[in-house]
């Protein structure tokens, strides 16, 4: 008998809100976290805007020791540790360097690349022949699993501790990997999530691909326009999301707050076949991923009431909606409500899946649908598929039970997870 898995803790560091309370308010209000960045302009970026969480020095020192902050220059690890520790505390545990090692809790915290600013420092040092003067933390900050290494040490986690990486699918994949482990009885709890660095060195490659919008540098809050007729590319973001997954029996035993249940999900790849490429999804694989997620969750496609899409504000948004309509076999007014958190925070890349899973769980727990900001001019190809009423541009309060969240990434990889309001 597979174990039921519930969510008992949340943590988030997003461009429009740090911490669950602030982020929840931002979601309700449709608050944009996108701002202009002079350094991007100075470096001749086409896209000079982005989403960067606001972290004060004071806040940093609540999570990191002075020693840990010496020579520290990895924004992804910073965001990941704050979100991870917050989720852990939210689940009713504490951060104590003397805590007993917990062999029943593991950690899967993903990222795309780690400590890119620190790596830059190190590369300059090495090229100047000063490798001996790099200091002791270059490896820890630049290894992909750096965030997992920092976090597991802060919390004393003794089950599997690792980092996954699957581009923009990373966070949703991490959640499903943790889910599998608990469902199969290999851990009681899994802290899962993902993070991404911010800044020119992580965003530059995307700017070079011309996939980021360059049309809204003077109006950053209007720039991220998923599903809009005037969508012209994504806006880069950064941050981290974290969730504590727990077996239902462990959560009930502890008498802790349950945010929602993870019913199931699916991860797959389109193998860069059937129209899929390194950068474009194979539509057949996307549909299969959604259908399998529904099947694995033991529900029917009609049970899905809300979708939190991947929906980045590129030309692929209409294709994504088309894939959903075909996978669910639902169109027009029969289609679920759909929103894109990216309209407020941009595309947080490797962190996107985790931040958006947190956003999904918040909306399910609080029973509202966050607005799609900047979608007052719905794309005609999308309007031909689903009723515009299903793409709210204002917050809606709604009693609902089931939300599906999907993430898709470069390399033609897909993940879809189904959350349900918790009922015993």
């Amino acid at each position, binding site marked *: 008998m597979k174990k039921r898995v519930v969510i008992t803790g949340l943590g988030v560091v997003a461009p429009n809100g740090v911490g669950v309370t602030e982020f929840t308010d931002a979601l309700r209000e449709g608050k944009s976290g996108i701002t202009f960045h002079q350094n991007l302009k100075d470096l001749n970026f086409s896209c000079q805007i982005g989403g960067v969480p606001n972290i004060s020095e004071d806040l940093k020192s609540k999570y990191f020791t*002075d*020693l840990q902050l*010496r*020579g520290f220059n990895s924004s992804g690890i910073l965001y990941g540790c704050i979100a991870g520790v917050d989720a852990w505390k939210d689940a009713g545990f504490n951060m104590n360097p003397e805590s007993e090692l917990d062999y029943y809790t593991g950690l899967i915290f993903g990222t795309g690349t780690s400590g890119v600013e620190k790596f830059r420092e190190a590369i300059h040092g090495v090229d100047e022949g000063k490798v001996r*003067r790099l*200091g*002791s*933390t270059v490896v820890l900050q630049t290894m992909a699993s750096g965030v997992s290494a920092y976090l597991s040490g802060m919390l004393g986690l003794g089950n599997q501790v690792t980092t996954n990486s699957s581009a923009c699918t990373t966070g949703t994949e991490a959640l499903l990997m943790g889910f599998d482990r608990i469902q199969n009885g290999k851990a009681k709890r899994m802290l899962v999530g993902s993070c991404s660095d911010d800044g020119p060195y992580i965003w530059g490659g995307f700017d070079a691909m011309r996939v980021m919008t360059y049309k809204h540098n003077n109006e950053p809050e209007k720039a991220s326009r998923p599903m809009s007729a005037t969508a012209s590319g994504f806006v880069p973001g950064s941050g981290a999301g974290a969730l504590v997954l727990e077996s239902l029996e462990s959560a009930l035993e502890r008498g802790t707050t349950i945010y929602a249940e993870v019913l199931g999900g699916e991860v797959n790849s389109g193998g860069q076949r059937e129209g899929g490429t390194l950068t474009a999804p194979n539509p057949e694989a996307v549909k299969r991923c959604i259908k399998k997620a529904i099947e694995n969750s033991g529900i029917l496609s009609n049970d899905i009431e809300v979708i939190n899409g991947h929906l980045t504000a590129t030309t692929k948004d209409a294709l994504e909606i088309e894939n959903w309509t075909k996978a669910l076999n639902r169109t027009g007014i029969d289609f679920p409500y759909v929103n894109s958190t990216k309209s407020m925070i941009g595309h947080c890349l490797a962190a996107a899946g985790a931040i958006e899973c947190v956003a999904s769980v918040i909306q399910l727990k609080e029973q509202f649908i966050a607005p799609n900001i900047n979608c007052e001019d719905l794309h005609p190809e999308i309007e031909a598929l689903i009723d515009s009423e299903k793409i709210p541009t204002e917050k809606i309060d709604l009693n609902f039970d089931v939300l599906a969240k999907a993430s898709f990434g470069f390399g033609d990889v897909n993940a879809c997870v189904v959350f349900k309001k918790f009922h015993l």
Partner: protein
Amino acid sequence: MNKEELIPKLKTIIAPYVQDEEAFKFLSEDTDFVKDLKINSANLVDIILDIEDEFDIRLENEDMENMLDVKSAMQIINTKLDN
């Protein structure tokens, strides 16, 4: 540089890395960086770099291997300063 001058300078340098504050209060020539002060051995590298900056000297890999306690650190620094 005599002991009275050197020890305060060393204390300032190693303070951020110390994990046992009690032992740090009673720091003497015989205090061992790792065993007594519970400094993470990886941080010995950072202490070496900070010493280099403070005294404007260069420490080699062999110096680092020998720099295990306050006494050996003072000897190595003084040797470098005399050169």
